[in-house]
């Protein structure tokens, strides 16, 4: 992949000479997406679904075009795509829309210690409200979710399986298709957190056969504050809304009301129209690159960094075998916040902290880690900058006596 020409597509680099290595938190935004955002406000700015006049009709068509493109992106149907505020919001919708009304005392929800708080806390809360029990897949020695371990906790009480597709800290890919098949053999419903997979892997919901799948626009070049919930048609039809109001209602009367069919049933109020409309461009941008080329590119960068890190004695990498473009590491004896300040001085942006995955930090036995994540705009030069700066931090803190 000609990385250098891609950097030009991202206006953030016009103003900032940064090595941006924090895509797992949020991606940068290409010019075409920004252009579409302003195009909506400049030329439409009307509401969707409501007006019969031309502008509103055109805005609705653009909005629906993104729904159609999103459906095609993951091999789903138009009515199976619900727009939400983000992956968090989508996962909460499944937990409170589906979980709350389908779980009973004694039922079990299978999650894992790899989960982002957004696929952990909603289930913990719903379990508390329903008397269901949260069960954890025991992780492998490397910290992976494996099929055998999953099978060991699956039983006839399992009603919901909610697992991450790609861990936002380790970058491991969960064997979700095999897990889904097993889960379905016990009639459990499968909800996949695809926030870290949708940006990097080709997803086919028909092949996985999961019941729900959630992801965020902002981690895949799209606008912030927008997410997607895929749900099988039958599941969405039987799921309760969590929010009630305009647009989601079919008929409202004093004697009772009825709801629209999905997806509108779950999209009350005026949605983030500009963001939805612009997300179309993000999908197009990714499709133009292609997931095969993207993976190759990310792997090349990751391998380059791993090779260099293996020659720095005090750098500990937690996920050397990961299949995706994510390197999670620490400098031994130095808190990641101290390291990240040194990197920040060299204009390298990467994440230090618990990555909204405190159970995993406990599993790893660390308070926090550093995480470098790679995406379309990163280059080998970014990697060199990271490696040099990490070396500098090692020396600096060694001299400081740590």
């Amino acid at each position, binding site marked *: 992949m000609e990385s250098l020409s891609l950097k030009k597509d991202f206006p953030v680099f016009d103003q900032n000479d940064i090595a941006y290595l924090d895509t797992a938190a949020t991606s940068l935004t290409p010019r075409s997406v920004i252009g579409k955002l302003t195009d909506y406000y400049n030329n439409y700015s009307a509401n969707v679904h409501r007006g019969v006049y031309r502008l509103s009709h055109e805005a609705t068509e653009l909005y629906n075009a993104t729904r159609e493109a999103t459906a095609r992106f993951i091999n789903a149907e138009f009515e199976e795509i619900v727009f939400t505020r983000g992956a968090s919001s989508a996962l909460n919708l499944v937990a409170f829309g589906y979980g709350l009304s389908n779980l009973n005392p004694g039922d079990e929800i299978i999650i894992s210690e790899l989960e982002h708080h957004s696929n952990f806390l909603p289930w913990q809360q719903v379990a508390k409200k329903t008397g269901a029990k949260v069960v954890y897949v025991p992780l492998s020695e490397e910290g992976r979710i494996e099929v055998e371990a999953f099978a060991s906790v699956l039983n006839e009480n399992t009603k919901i399986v909610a697992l991450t597709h790609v861990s936002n800290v380790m970058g491991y890919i969960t064997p979700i298709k095999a897990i889904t098949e097993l889960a379905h053999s016990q009639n459990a419903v499968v909800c996949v957190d695809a926030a870290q997979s949708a940006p990097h892997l080709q997803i086919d919901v028909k092949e996985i056969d999961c019941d729900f799948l959630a992801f965020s626009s902002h981690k895949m070049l799209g606008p912030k504050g927008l997410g997607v919930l895929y749900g099988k048609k039958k599941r969405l039809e039987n799921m309760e809304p969590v929010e009630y109001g305009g647009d989601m209602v079919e008929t409202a009367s004093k004697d009772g009301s009825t709801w629209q069919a999905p997806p509108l049933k779950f999209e009350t109020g005026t949605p983030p129209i500009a963001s939805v409309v612009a997300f179309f461009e993000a999908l197009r941008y990714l499709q133009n690159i292609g997931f095969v080329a993207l993976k190759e590119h990310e792997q090349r960068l990751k391998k380059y960094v791993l090779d260099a890190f293996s020659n720095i004695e005090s750098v500990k990498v937690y996920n050397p075998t990961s299949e995706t473009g994510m390197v999670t590491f620490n400098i031994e004896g130095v*808190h*990641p*916040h*101290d390291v990240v*300040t*040194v990197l*920040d*001085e060299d204009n390298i942006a990467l994440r*230090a*902290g*618990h990555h909204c995955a*405190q159970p995993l*930090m406990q599993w790893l036995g660390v*308070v*926090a880690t550093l995480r470098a994540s790679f995406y379309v705009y990163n280059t080998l030069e970014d990697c060199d900058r990271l490696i040099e700066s990490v070396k500098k931090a090692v020396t*600096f*803190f060694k001299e*400081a*006596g*740590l």
Partner: protein
Amino acid sequence: MNRLENLYRKIIMDHYKNPRNKGLTDDTRYKQEHIKNPSCGDDVTIQSFVEDGVVKDIRHDGSGCSICCSSASVLSVLLKDRPVKEALAFSENYTKMIANQPYDETLEFEDALAYQGVRKFPARTKCATIAWKAFESTVKVEDNDE
């Protein structure tokens, strides 16, 4: 001195490696405050023992970066044996100093003066102030009890 050396002063690193007054006590005369910064995981507990309006002892424990952990040690030395009012004046002015606001420069900040370097690193000001915030609550609780 470059920016990094100015941030990670020798005094700070010394308090980080050899913390003074570290370790909590079960003594119920101590008031305790635990603060956690959810975004970064810094986690500090401060205990102080106040008698006759004077801070007789300060203990601390926790985990976090060098700036956070060392500042708990520094304040435990600086504020010990000071009247509560004076200790709070230090705390208030320290916070202003870190925030790059005008503060009372006549106060003898001793080792705490080393944290001036943090002013150039706005992303780290929380690290430098979290222990002080915890300390303030331990002595303010005492006020309410009186």
